[in-house]
């Protein structure tokens, strides 16, 4: 079996499904460089008009929160129920609220 020097880097792919929507993560692929990553993303993830715009970014350039942290990163929002509209009692006879 022939050896290759190194595997092409991994890219994460984000596709905007149509105008007005956010780019959404759809998967990953390997490519030698950014331009090839875009072309491969088109061929792998938009064969049926699934997108109007593609972002690719090297997986190693993504910083992610860890779901395993003992003190969860999302705890600060857990006890702030007053940030939600349902926290406030408004009489039923008040319209449009």
């Amino acid at each position, binding site marked *: 079996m022939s050896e290759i020097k190194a595997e092409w880097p991994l890219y994460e792919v984000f596709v905007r499904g149509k105008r007005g929507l956010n780019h959404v993560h759809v*998967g990953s692929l390997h490519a030698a460089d950014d331009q090839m990553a875009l072309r491969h993303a088109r061929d792998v993830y938009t064969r049926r008009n699934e997108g109007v715009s593609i972002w690719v970014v090297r997986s190693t350039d993504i910083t992610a929160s860890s779901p395993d942290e003992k003190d969860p990163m999302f705890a600060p929002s857990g006890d702030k129920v007053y940030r939600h509209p349902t926290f406030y009692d408004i009489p039923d006879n008040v319209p449009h609220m």
Partner: protein
Amino acid sequence: MTAAPGTTGPDTAALEEQFAATVARKDRIEPRDWMPEAYRKTVVRQVAQHAHSEIIGMQPEGNWIGRAPSLRRKAILLAKVQDEAGHGLYLYSATETLGVSRRELTEMLIAGKQKYSSIFNYPALSYADVGTIGWLVDGAAICNQVPLCRTSYGPYGRAMIRICKEESFHQRQGFELLMTMMRGTDEQRAMVQESVDRFWWPALMMFGPPDDDSPNTEQSMAWGIKTHTNDELRQKFVDMSVPQAEALGVTFPDPDLEWNEERGHYDFGQPDWEEFWAVVKGNGPCNAQRLAHRTKAWDDGAWVREAATAFAEKTVKSQNGGDR
């Protein structure tokens, strides 16, 4: 982004509890979650096997692209085989989230250390087989895959959702191809029946061995990786396929195939499980040919991978104002 390594230590019990609770809620496990090593291994094994099946699965049909009977059929077959490559890539991508690289996976396939579906070790002998593969083989695959959209490992489930959307085209183009042949000459109708006769039993084998001979099923179901047993899915496939065969005007080569009013299902015979295990162990009609072809493609592509890497390095250097 790779999975956090499985840790052992005083906190392992708490982590195991958290994992079990997530699975019990039918919530998804995501790549960076802690997971038992055995769960990780099982998902890697199953998803890699599935990815390899898509990639090897391009061969029986790819063989017919150059001999398609019309431009229409050729365009359809090209699109289908390209989809199989795409499905393989979605699944390799899911496997990689568990810390196994694409190259490792390809090398394990070539070395025979990981399996692919035994169905692809049967040859496609006539153009009718292109239709039968779409109808029965992709039909069986859909039966297997639809429940996997809700599998407990997030990236696998998401890959399956994309794949299932596209598989529907595969099955329908196959059925339409066979319908067209059935409207043709006696010879063409005979070709369809002969093809169905060859593929029926191998298609039933695609669901894996009977439940009492499937050692991994129980644990996989407890972990939410699988949601139905092999026999349940096989029954579902038979029930679906019989009316389709009637609509097409073909029969299945099973004398025991009969509607059972009491069960509300079709009774059917068992495939030759000895043949199944022989094919799994590498003694099917095309095992050697499939792996040799994949190895050749991998070796022949080596210079392309190297050249693209060299070009990328050169571009970076020249952008940095380096050696011009």
